[in-house]
Structures are given as structure tokens and as C-alpha cells.
């Protein structure tokens, strides 16, 4: 693997911001030069619409988009490019599913999610349940951030129609055993629909959608080194071709008369209107970028840094720090670590770190129900997330910044 310095040199943002310590990848990853170059290529050489024109430039743009569709299918471990629907982000993919699955549900059907969901996989189901008299059941997590299989079993039932859960928690860094969860769910209700929120796992977790055997998988390009504005919904073809569309308009119909419209098969069926063409094409280069390192080695790199950070934080702050999520000594803890430091509000920590050019996230990270269940007086945390461009140097700087925050705030009457 390249050194972190060599990797940083592949990201223009580090040249333009000397001394940047970026620990907020779970929100958005930074963008490599190769992706920016590809975006420029599109806008400089064939910046036209897809599918419509019969002229060369439009053919080129169409070809590039369909090439990325194929590449995305392979990258996610799917079997066909027709199972890839381009959306704006994970949030849109999940909302699309909630709306599209609605006609298959009836009153009192159950939707199961977990207590560690991002709002993107929480609010759409909560609102659906409220509006249509469905039951939303929320599987709680244990103190160390994992979900007990026995608990999961008691929340699933033959009435469960949808089971939607986060693969890697954006707060706790927990890796949910998706394959196992799905097996358990199907043993209780064989025909339920399983959905994985893969926002934090799509770019680093080696197993693909066919290995996991989910029905749907959602993710965001901007958390995978891609451009902002491109998301993915992967679904089994058999579902995609029968479910009703979410958005209606051009490109998704094969014929329209005054009284009737006939919809195309997937993916066109779910891609009404002009897509974010340049972003899709740029996303293809992001996938190449990830593959040049390999998902497994990215996963391992992030995990190793988390273990080191866990150790250093415990050593340095002892009882004054609370670390959330699984203990990396005994369980898998991915590249995301959230914590609370006694006596200093997370917002103040992140502001003091910002003065040192260290970027972390403070607050509830779009997971308020999760934070209500954390043992911290502020009901908020500081979150650190690692990626390829991070190294133990970032941990040193973070620890230094935290010591500064702590000394500034240590009570002196």
C-alpha cells in the first residue's frame, strides 16, 4: 500500500489546504484528482444529454453512463446492470423504496428497523407507518453497540414485510452481520423484503449484494470518493420490474397516450428525467480508484486506525472519556469512532479542533434516536472517521487537540 503522504498527493484538497487533518469521511469523502479529471472530461468533451440524441456526442455520453452502470453492478457484486438505479443519494434511494413498496403493504403490516439507524433509514419508515397505519418496530442495540440475535428474533414476526437496517453504523462503527440478519429474518418470514443501508459500507466492505442476499442495497457516491449528487439503489431485478415507479415523467415510459402510460423496465422505470450525468460518469472513476487499492485493504486500514485511536484515547484520558461502539480488542470496530469527553461539550471540542485544522463532526450525526440511548450527559458525541488518506499522524494531532480542549475546560474555581 502507498504511504499516506503518497495517497494524500492524489487529492488536490491537501495541496490547497496544507496541514489539513480530515476526519469527517463518514459525512463525505474527499475527491481524488482522477474523479475531478473525469468530471472535466464530460463537461469539456461531451456535455450533452443521454439516450435522446442520435448524434455522436450523445452516444458517447450514453455509452459512458451505461459503462458506469455495468461497473457499479460488478463493484457491488450484482449480476446485471439493469439492477442499478442512479439516484441522488442514499436518502433518495431509501425514500424511493418506501414509496415504491407502499402499494404492497396493508394496515398493521410490520416494518422492522434498528435503533442505530441514520435518519435516512428512520424517518421515511416512521412517516409511512404513521400515514398508513403500519407498525414500525425498532430493534434496540446493546450497550457496546451490537445487536443481539435473540433480540432481533423477538422483533421479527410473520407479519414483518420489510426489514431495513444499517450495515455499518455511522455513529457506533458497528458492522452488522448482514448475511446473518437476513438469514434470521427469512427463517421467520421467507417473503419479507430486506434492505441494507450501505452508505458507510459500500466503499470498503468486501462482500457483495449477492453474497449478502439482500433484496435492496442503497449507497451514496460522495462517501465513496465520488462526486456529490449521485446515489445508488441496487435491487433484485424481479422486484424492480414489478414495483410501481416513484417519479413519473420522461425517459421512464415506453408509450404515453392521453389516458394511459406504459412504463419501461428497470432501470429506466425508476429514472425519470435527466440524470446527474457528469456525476455518474465521475463516479465510475471513483470505483476505479477504490479498486486500485481493494475494498479489503481500505477496510483493514480504517479498522487498524480505529484500534489505535481507541487505545490512545483510553490511555490518555482514562475515565474522563467514554468511547462508544464495540471494543476493537474483542469485536470488529470499523473506521468510525464516536466519543464523549467529560466536561467538554462535543461542539466545543470540534470548534477547538477546527482551530487546529482538524475536521471532526460533533452533534447527533443525523441519528437522534440512537443518541437518546447513549450514556452521555450531552446526548451528543464527537465523531472521528478514517479513510485511506489518514495515518497515525492524524491520531497524534487529534490527541493533542483534545488535550488542549480539556485543559481549557477543566474546571478552575
Amino acid at each position, binding site marked *: 500500500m502507498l504511504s499516506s503522504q503518497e495517497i494524500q498527493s492524489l487529492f488536490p484538497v491537501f495541496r490547497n489546504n496544507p496541514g489539513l487533518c480530515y476526519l469527517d469521511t463518514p459525512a463525505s469523502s474527499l475527491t481524488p484528482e482522477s474523479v475531478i479529471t473525469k468530471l472535466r472530461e464530460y463537461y469539456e468533451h461531451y456535455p450533452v444529454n443521454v439516450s435522446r440524441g442520435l448524434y455522436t456526442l450523445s452516444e458517447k455520453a450514453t455509452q459512458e453512463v451505461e459503462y458506469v452502470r455495468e461497473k457499479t453492478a460488478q463493484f457491488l457484486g450484482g449480476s446485471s446492470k439493469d439492477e442499478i438505479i442512479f439516484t441522488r443519494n442514499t436518502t433518495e434511494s431509501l425514500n424511493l423504496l418506501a414509496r415504491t413498496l407502499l402499494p404492497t403493504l396493508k394496515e398493521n403490516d410490520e416494518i422492522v428497523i434498528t435503533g442505530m439507524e441514520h435518519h435516512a433509514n428512520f424517518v421515511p419508515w416512521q412517516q409511512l407507518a404513521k400515514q398508513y397505519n403500519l407498525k414500525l418496530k425498532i430493534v434496540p442495540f446493546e450497550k457496546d453497540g451490537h445487536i443481539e440475535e435473540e433480540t432481533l428474533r423477538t422483533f421479527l414476526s410473520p407479519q414483518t414485510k420489510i426489514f431495513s437496517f444499517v450495515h455499518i453504523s455511522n455513529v457506533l462503527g458497528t458492522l452488522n452481520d448482514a448475511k446473518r440478519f437476513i438469514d434470521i429474518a427469512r427463517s421467520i418470514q421467507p417473503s419479507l423484503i430486506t434492505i441494507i443501508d450501505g452508505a458507510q459500507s459500500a466503499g470498503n466492505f468486501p462482500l457483495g449484494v449477492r453474497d449478502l442476499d439482500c433484496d435492496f442495497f442503497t449507497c451514496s457516491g460522495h462517501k465513496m470518493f465520488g462526486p456529490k449528487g449521485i446515489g445508488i439503489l441496487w435491487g433484485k431485478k424481479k422486484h424492480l420490474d414489478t414495483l410501481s415507479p416513484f417519479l413519473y415523467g420522461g425517459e421512464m415510459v415506453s408509450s404515453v397516450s392521453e389516458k394511459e402510460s406504459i412504463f419501461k423496465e428497470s432501470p429506466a422505470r425508476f429514472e425519470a428525467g435527466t440524470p446527474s450525468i457528469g456525476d455518474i460518469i465521475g463516479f465510475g472513476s471513483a470505483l476505479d480508484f477504490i479498486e486500485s487499492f481493494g475494498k479489503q485493504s481500505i477496510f483493514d486500514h480504517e479498522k487498524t486506525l480505529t484500534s489505535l485511536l481507541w487505545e490512545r484515547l483510553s490511555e490518555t484520558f482514562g475515565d474522563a472519556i467514554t468511547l462508544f461502539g464495540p471494543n476493537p480488542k474483542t469485536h470488529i470496530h470499523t473506521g468510525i469512532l464516536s466519543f464523549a469527553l467529560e466536561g467538554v*461539550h*462535543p*461542539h*466545543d471540542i470540534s*470548534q*477547538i479542533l477546527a*482551530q487546529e485544522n482538524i475536521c471532526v463532526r*460533533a*452533534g*447527533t450525526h443525523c441519528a*437522534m434516536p440512537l*443518541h437518546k440511548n447513549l450514556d452521555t*450527559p*450531552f*446526548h*451528543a458525541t464527537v465523531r472521528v472517521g478514517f479513510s485511506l488518506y489518514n495515518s497515525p499522524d492524524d491520531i497524534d494531532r487529534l490527541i493533542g487537540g483534545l488535550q488542549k480542549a480539556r485543559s*481549557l*475546560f477543566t*474546571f*478552575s*474555581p
Partner: protein
Amino acid sequence: MNIYQENILDHYHNPRNFGSLSDNSNALSLENPSCGDSLTLSLSVEKNSITNIAFTGSGCALSIASASLLTEYAKGKSIEELTKLSKSAMVSLLGIEVGPARIKCALLAWEALQKILHNFSEKNL
């Protein structure tokens, strides 16, 4: 500019008027949900002026210090005067520059005060 000036830290560590009043007829709780700040402000009003004011809550230095500074400022002032206290005047009380990411924390107590004053005026029209 470093927002952690001595004055801010002092008001954070030793908040003035911290607590609650026995009469809570003019009290209001507000939350700043995305960062987890929560605050309850209570006033006593006599002849249109604030005779007593107190707050409780937990939050970042900015939200606690601004509540503390605001309660000091408000004591003895008339309702009219306080209704006129603008957002920027509140930020001036803090004596620091507050960026867009933190402005909600800095204005939490001010917002609670304005809501209480509004409710009070409605009740006592």
C-alpha cells in the same frame, strides 16, 4: 478569532442565575436538537419589568455562557426594552464573533426569552 475568551469560559464555568424560580408561570424550555443543547428559562415579572430570572440546562460553552450573560443583562429591564433586544445585540453581549455554525447555540437563551415575553404579552393584553 478564538471564541473561548476568558469571559465566555468564566460564564460557562460559573453561570450566573443558574437554577429555577419558585414561580414558573413564565418559564419555557428549548432544545437545539442537532447538537444536544437544552435550556429552561424562567422569569418573574412585576409592573412590566423583570424582577427575577433564572435558567437551567446543559449544553456547549456558548449556549451556557450566552444564557448566563443574558440573564445578567435582563434583570431589572422592562419588557419593552427586552423585546427590542435584537439578535445582533445579543451577540454583542457575548463580545465575540459567532459564525453561522454556532449562532443557534448563541441565540438559544435569547430565543427562549423572546418567546416568554411574547407569551406574557398575549396573556396580559
